């Protein structure tokens, strides 16, 4: 029995990309402070184990190897779009960030930074106004933000001109989030981008972005490169947020109306009693 936050201990977390395992040596990583080794065997099957050989639960979905260290209460997050035949799942790699997982998820939900941190790609000064949007609770837990709109000069590799992009954001598990955004070619269908934050420790994470994009002439390599470029713009921001753990108390930081989804995310984490990688509302921020 671990004393670590049961919410994360009993949940599934991605720990490696299958494409990396197939083309390279075993991956050594850490999940919730527990060292792991993940390897592919000669038949292309994947094996994750703890270095202390305590058993764990393993699964493989969407090009990622998933691990649960405790007792899984539910399967790996279901992604219905992954079953649509014209959307190949493209993993973007394991990207390390020296901050708590919830900070990584919150940054993904953030609309106000697009025009600055991702200037000339996902937003641009002076088109940086965040128009009102709606945030609701999801019936199975988590939050959904709808009606988000942002002017984007280059929303994706296939975009040839700037346009107003419609977004929906979801957080279905504490360290899993996704967005739906209008595809520049199929403007009536949505590209789906997931971001999973693997909690290495309370203040270190590995981000695993996953793309489920519609065919628009962009290669998997281009999609990957673009997403890496975007995420690496966020890395220094995330690593310069103080404190590293996400403070959950209302008033610990100063949100405005544009931060509605971030406020809802923090409140939801408080409500479910998350303790790992956060500063709970009753504790005082350092």
């Amino acid at each position, binding site marked *: 029995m671990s004393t670590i936050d049961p919410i994360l201990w009993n949940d599934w977390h991605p720990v490696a990309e299958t494409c990396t395992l197939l083309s390279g040596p075993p991956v050594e990583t850490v999940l919730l402070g527990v060292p792991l080794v993940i390897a592919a065997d000669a038949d292309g099957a994947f094996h994750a184990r703890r270095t202390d050989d305590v058993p764990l639960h393993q699964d493989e979905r969407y090009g990622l190897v998933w691990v649960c260290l405790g007792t899984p209460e539910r399967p790996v997050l279901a992604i219905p779009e992954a079953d649509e035949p014209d959307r190949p799942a493209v993993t973007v790699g394991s990207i390390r960030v020296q901050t708590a997982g919830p900070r990584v998820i919150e940054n993904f939900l953030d609309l106000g930074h697009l025009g600055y941190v991702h200037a000339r790609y996902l937003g641009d000064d002076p088109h940086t106004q965040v128009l009102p949007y709606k945030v609701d609770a999801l019936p199975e837990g988590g939050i959904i933000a709808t009606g988000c709109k942002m002017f984007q000069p280059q929303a994706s590799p296939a975009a040839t001109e700037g346009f107003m992009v419609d977004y929906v954001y979801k957080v279905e598990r504490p360290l899993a989030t996704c967005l739906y955004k209008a595809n520049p070619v199929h403007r009536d269908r949505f590209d789906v981008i997931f971001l999973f934050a693997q909690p290495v420790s309370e203040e270190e994470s590995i981000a695993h972005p996953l793309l489920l994009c519609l065919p628009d002439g962009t290669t998997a*390599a281009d999609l990957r490169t673009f997403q890496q470029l975007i995420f690496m713009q966020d*890395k*220094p921001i995330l690593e310069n947020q103080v404190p590293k753990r996400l403070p959950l108390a209302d008033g610990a930081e100063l949100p405005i109306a544009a931060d509605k989804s971030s406020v809802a995310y923090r409140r939801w984490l408080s409500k479910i009693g998350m303790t790992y990688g956060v500063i709970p509302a009753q504790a005082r921020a350092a």
Partner: protein
Amino acid sequence: MILYDAHHVAPAYAVRLLAGFLGLPLELQGMDVYPGHDDRSDEFLALNPLGTLPVLVDGDTVFTDWQEILAHLALAHGPDWYPATDPALVGWLGIARDLAASAGAARLMQTFCVPGDLAEAKAQAERLLDEVERRMWFAERAGHGWLLAGTHPTIADIAAFVSIAPCEDGGLSLRDRPALRRWCDRVRFHPGFVPMSGVFPPMANT
């Protein structure tokens, strides 16, 4: 001119940065290095048997060393960037190569989980950063803004900048290296600057 390039590879960024300062158009050939390993493909290894990025193809000539590419572009298009009569240029380019092997390597380990000896890479980088900081502080007091004496930045500044400016991605810190932070600002504000993820462009006029 075709540049075989990956956005996050610091030596490739050095070439894009110099091209930006010189106003040179480059045709970028993007490579999926991580996790795609395009750099290990037969096609790429035929071009550069060492498998390193960047590679520049200029007419019939293929350049496979990043510092040689900087020298080539500067000699051909901006001799101010290549003070051939100053022996310090050689020393600084050597330090920049050592920085790429230490601070640059730490950054790749701390970004893409590239395996390696992080503690050793960081220890070596700390020694180099301390020394570059010391030299830069005295250069500033003597009225210079760049690594080499003189009023114009050189390819040495570019070669060192691409490892130093994003070094915090690798778990190093510039906090107690104030002269390096000011020098990074001077590079960022130099006309023609282009960013890389992890190095912010000046916001003032964006």
